[in-house]
């Protein structure tokens, strides 16, 4: 899970949002989620187990994801996480917030001195 460049730290609180996003596609187990995060971000984010698992626990506690033991494609047992209705709603909300904020931030960052 190491990229050529030093992976960035995640902005606080965004990990949960990204996990929800990944799970919106399909239910997935812990390792899969980690790999998927790295893949989608093209190696920008590297999430270690020490952050991933507490995030799962928090999401589960908040009722945003549901966990079930299932058999993997390799015939092993793994804990699969999937979105709940609440989780879907939350993802929608946070995505909207996020887009609004990032749009605003990037406008500020890209504005010329005169505009400021």
């Amino acid at each position, binding site marked *: *899970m190491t990229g050529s460049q030093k992976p960035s730290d995640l902005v606080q609180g965004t990990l949960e949002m990204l996990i929800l996003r990944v799970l919106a596609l399909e239910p997935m*187990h*812990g*390792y*899969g989620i980690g*790999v998927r995060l790295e893949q989608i971000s093209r190696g920008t984010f590297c999430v*270690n*187990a*020490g*952050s991933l*698992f*507490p*995030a*799962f*626990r*928090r999401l589960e*506690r*908040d*009722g945003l994801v549901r966990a079930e033991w299932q058999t*993997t494609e*390799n015939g*092993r*047992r*793994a*804990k699969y996480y999937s979105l709940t209705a609440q989780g879907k709603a939350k993802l929608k909300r946070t995505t909207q917030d996020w887009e609004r904020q990032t749009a605003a931030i990037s406008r500020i960052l890209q504005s010329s001195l005169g505009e400021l």
Partner: protein
Amino acid sequence: MAWVNRILQGLRALFHAKRIEQELDDELRAFVDASVNAKLDAGMRRQDAVRAARLELGSEASVKDAVRDAGWESWVGDFWRDIAYARRSLTRSPGFTAVAVLTLAIGTGATTAIFSVVSGVLLKPLPYPNSSRIVRLFMNAPASESPSKRPLRASLGLTAAEINEVRTRVRTLSHVGTSTGILRSLRGHEEAARLQGSRVSASAFEMIDAQPMLGRVFNADDELVGAEPVMILSHAAWLRFFQGDRDVIGSVTTTDSVLGQRVESRYTVIGVMPQGFAYPEPSTQFWVPFAMSAPGAPPLRGPLVGRLADGVSVEAATAELSSALRGIRPEARETQYELALEHLELVAPVRPALWVLMSAVGCVLLIACVNVANLLLARSAARDREMAVRVALGAGRGRLVRQVLTESMMLSLLGGVVGVALAFGGVRILKQLATTISRIDLSPTAFPRIESIAIDLWTLVFAIVCTAATGVLFGLAPALVHSRVDPVRGLRGPSVGAGRSRIWRPSVRQCLVVSEVALAMMLLVGGGLLIRSFLKLSMIDPGYNAENVLTFQVSLPSSRYTNLEMRAFAETMVQRLRSSPGVEAAAYGNQLPMVNLSDTAGGLWTSPDPQRPPTPVGPDARIVSRDYLRVFGIPVVAGRGFNDGDGEGQRRVLLVNQTLVNKDFAGESPIGRAVFIGRDIVPWEIVGIVADVRQFGLDHEPTPQFFVDMRQWGVGGTFFPIGAYYAVRTNADPRTLLATARNTVANLDKEAALFNVAPMEDLIANTIARPRMYTALLGSFAAAGLLLALVGIYGVIAYTVTQRTREIGIRMSLGARGGNVTSLVLRQSFPLMIIGVSIGLVGAAMMSRFLETLLFGVKPLDAATFGTMALMFIWVAGLASYVPARRAAKVDPLVALRCD
């Protein structure tokens, strides 16, 4: 309801901890498996894949820890683990634990005890409804309108009629009434029992919502002229004199007046108050109405008390009441009226002192905290390695802080428990210190509201808060130090520890020591000032020898004795006492020193005037028996004293004191001059001058006095308005004479009884009871502060020496001598002390003005006290650091070099 969910989930996790752990293990294993599989698929060899997967996961334990920490319930488990760990680590070093717990116990114990006083006396409301709205009337009279011709603030005595008028006129007070003291003896009880009672208005009882246990309370009709005299008994008096008989209601009881002219009065008992009813004082044993006086009789006067009507401010009530009083007392044009809130007025004399004591005890507590923080820091140095191991194993900073704080909380809890136990004892001692002789004829020295001082729920809550706060206060510094442990450096061990990374840590310790020294210095100066002031006060020569003098009064069965018979009784009494074994001299008089009632006998004049109006000002008339001066050892400085020749019918002679000579005769000898007392037109000849005595208290300058021999005193008026006082000089402990005195009295008259028995020394001690209490308390706080600060200084220096053993070893092997090493260590501690002492002196200079009202004959900025205390402190602190420094000098270089 996300939080409800979280709590439920957390609880579930607590109850199914095992299963959840198991599940987490499984999940992690699955994670590693998946990781390995992915790597195998990518073409890695199995061995490498497993290794890479493990590396990616990192420490499994710390991942699990992070997952556990995601829910609140992990705190519970951690908490128990921390407690178990703290217990282990504290029992492993019992010496440290004992010192820390004891230090904290002293701090919290003293603070809790003083808080119980502050809470009981200052904070708790009086035990009446709306007690914070009860007011008392004072007048501020200028010299021209004051009876003593000096500006005066005093409560204003009003008659029942005037009080009724105020009640009808003033709308801003919902209740208006009065209560004033009365002394009576109960007829028909063996021990000529003297009861302290109160004349009280019906509306004063209504104001405090007084409910009787039996019968009824007063109503307005009881106050009318000619109403049947009625009485209410206290619970205690009812039990003691009426054996708790419920039929007492409606019975008639006969009383005799104790002071002034003997008057017999009969009262119908109409009620009994419940236990604990204590208005106006806990010692009040009965109540009679404050009744209107019969026309022609001199009216009784009482101070006005009332309750503010709802929504009325003190100012508004004062304004309305003032205008009403101007109508009632048109002659007092300049006098200002003031309504004081009763709950503040009652404790006004002790409030400043209590806040001073509370701050002082707060200082002791702070010193205790600093001391324990210091001890913990010293320990923390030794635990660097342990903490480094924990960090290396993945413990977070927060986790370490929590663990260290748990340890300090445990210490403070132990300290708090021992402290509260100490506080129980402390409060008992405090109450003993505050208890005074409660007598109506002595100046009021009683500590207000002493009965409400107790370790109650509030005090315990305070102790708990105090304990928790101290735990955080002294635990935080060491906790933060630990949280910054650098695992690499820590693990490498203390041999490199003398390097740069440590420099900041001693500075924390140094700051702590400096603040400790400064606090202790402030306490010492405060204690020193009070002690000096108290010594000055108690070393004042009262002008008489109080040692081995027993004083008492005798109550005679009222109306059976005329004035002359009373005098005859007293003369016989002293004659018989004089011939008793162990008695050197015996006398009686109208008053004793320290009795707080002045008797001018109409004043002393150089010309006769049979129409002279009575005057309340004038020298103090001392009407005494022959040997009065001898008993008290009051020297005659010129002329002669009384002798056997000064009997009835002889030339009338009189003695004056030095102050009177200085004041009225401009210091010239008045011996041989003729003077007149009151309206008396027969002259008295001054035959002697006696030395001054302090009549009204050690801190009161002597006042003019003259002495008359009782045998020559006329028969007009009352001989002993407050009963005769006896004074007997013995050649041993005066208390041993009590039985003799009692027998002598009983032999003369079976119905007579001794009362107000006290050695003269106790009467003097009683006048300085409060300063003594303050001095004892502040003095012991200063001592405790000093002791704790010394322990702190010693600890720091000893610690430095241990840290520098190696360096000292090197120095010594290079030729340094013991003396060099000692001074090396002392050089380090000396600046700390000087800084601390300087800060402390500045602080003391700023704070000592709050002591001003408590000081007698000492200025708050008394240079001698400041200097002595600073020098003493530096000296003992020097000693405390010299001991470890000396030990450093004895270090064996070989041992020192090998020690790490």
